């Protein structure tokens, strides 16, 4: 960001920064509309239904129709609700979900803010997401939302611990907290991706386990099934969202899905080589093309991996039954936490004694 300002002057630099943000936001929201449809389509396919298929060809415009519907409905604020906090909660959820994307590198150099502590920033912002839910649940002044928000607070704080430890193993391997550096540490092809790490063959089982654990923790962190206890409809109706209608509900939903896609992007960056393709094409071949074309290719890989993970999220929602709350806590604290701690020790020892990093 500061580089852009130095290159293009104060006004031009700021315009460039704002332009980047706008472009990123629009692309993100548009792709989210279709990812939402994909979620419902996958779910329907597993149940042998057709899913949304009326609005537009194959139901492609369904999300836009829903969007219009949400915008035009009446905003209902419960009489006993704490009005300011009630309306602040969905706004906070959406803002934080967008803010995290500022640090995500989608192709070499294509990132709004290339932070030195990028991965910590992502971790910090995603750990703030719980506030939207707690505030929403408390401000509704109603039983189900309150119970849902209490559940989600405990659940998200618990699984953040294991996510943090898993992130540490990746940081140790890459030797940097910069997301671009972490991606470039995996540029040699799919065998150097952290999920497989065949180039450090001793770590292969450890990193594969970390990858799977990160996926499961991401499910819990984003309140997705089978860990969607905060909004378990059979027990809590819809959890913290019960009292929300119209646009505030829409903001909650967009924020939630943005967080899911963010988790997909984090898994892509941390474990699946980010923007790198599975087989390196070689510098000679790549240099024939202009830079923007190469970067578009990288972007395509990045998006393809995100869509793959989103497909896994959707599939999990369709095929796995919901956990019980004590089972959820047991999994987080008694299985994931010790395993991730052990993995940090193993990876740390390997990094020190094999001389991978200084």
């Amino acid at each position: 960001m500061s580089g852009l300002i130095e290159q293009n002057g104060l006004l031009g630099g700021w315009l460039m920064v704002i332009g980047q943000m706008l472009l990123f936001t629009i692309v993100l929201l548009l792709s989210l509309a279709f990812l939402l449809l994909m979620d419902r389509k996958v779910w329907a396919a597993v149940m042998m239904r057709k899913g949304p298929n009326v609005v537009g060809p194959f139901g492609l415009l369904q999300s836009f129709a829903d969007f219009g519907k949400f915008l035009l409905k009446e905003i209902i604020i419960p009489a006993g609700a704490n009005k300011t906090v009630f309306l602040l909660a969905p706004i906070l959820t959406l803002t934080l979900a967008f803010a995290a994307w500022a640090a995500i590198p989608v192709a070499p150099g294509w990132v709004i803010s290339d932070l030195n502590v990028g991965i910590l920033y992502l971790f910090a912002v995603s750990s703030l997401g719980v506030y939207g839910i707690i505030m929403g649940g408390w401000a509704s002044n109603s039983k189900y939302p309150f119970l849902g928000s209490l559940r989600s607070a405990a659940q998200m704080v618990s699984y953040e611990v294991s996510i943090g430890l898993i992130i540490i193993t990746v940081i140790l391997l890459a030797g940097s907290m910069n997301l671009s550096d972490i991606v470039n540490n995996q540029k040699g092809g799919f065998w150097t991706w952290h999920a497989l790490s065949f180039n450090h063959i001793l770590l292969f089982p450890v990193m594969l386990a970390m990858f799977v654990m990160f996926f499961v923790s991401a499910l819990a962190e984003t309140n997705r099934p089978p860990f969607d206890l905060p909004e378990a409809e059979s027990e809590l109706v819809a959890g913290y969202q019960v009292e929300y209608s119209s646009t505030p509900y829409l903001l909650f939903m967009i924020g939630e899905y943005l967080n899911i896609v963010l988790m997909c992007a984090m898994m892509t960056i941390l474990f699946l080589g980010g923007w790198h393709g599975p087989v390196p094409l070689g510098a000679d071949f790549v240099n024939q093309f202009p830079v923007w074309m190469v970067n578009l290719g990288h972007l395509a890989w990045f998006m393809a991996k995100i869509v793959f993970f989103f497909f896994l999220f959707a599939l999990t929602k369709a095929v796995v039954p919901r956990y019980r709350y004590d089972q959820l806590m047991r999994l987080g604290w008694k299985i994931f936490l010790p395993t991730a701690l052990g993995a940090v020790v193993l990876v740390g020892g390997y990094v020190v004694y094999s001389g991978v990093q200084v």
Partner: protein
Amino acid sequence: MELIAFYIFAAIITVSAMAVIAARNPVHSVLWLILCFFTAAGLLVLIGAEFLAMLLVVVYVGAVAVLFLFVVMMLDVDFVELKQGTLQYWPFAGLVGLAFIAEIAIASFARESSGRDVFNPAPGAATNAEAIGAVMYTDYFLLFQLAGLILLVAMIGAIVLTLRHRPDIKRQNIARQTARRRADATSRVSVEPGKGL
């Protein structure tokens, strides 16, 4: 530019810190406190200590304040009643506030007169994180380990104080459940007609 950002952050911190005390609703107080923490992280970013800033957000805002909020939300205290006697503590509170102001004033005057006003967030290292790591794991290694040990003792103490095993409730033994086979639970009996078991 930096100065403008500093004054904006400083103003937000001051206002939100006042609001923590002034807010009638305790949940609002905690929310203001969170804003205060978050803005403090912004100040740390401003002086180039981005690692510390992120840690502040992860630890204080992301975990500690969540638990604060959790507890305050669950408490069912009549705050009107609680606040009635507050005024009689004014002299004491004023004294504490004066002490704080005096300490900060002394510290900042001492700093001014020492002439070391150039702040370097990452002395002798590329990034803030490396600088902290280089000091923490060499010069202050023993203190760091001691702090960790104290925290461990505190954690175990808290668990020991609150953990109680209730024999009257049913608990799930996952290992026993998954080890259970059909032969353990069922048996085949051939029952003769008209006799029963």
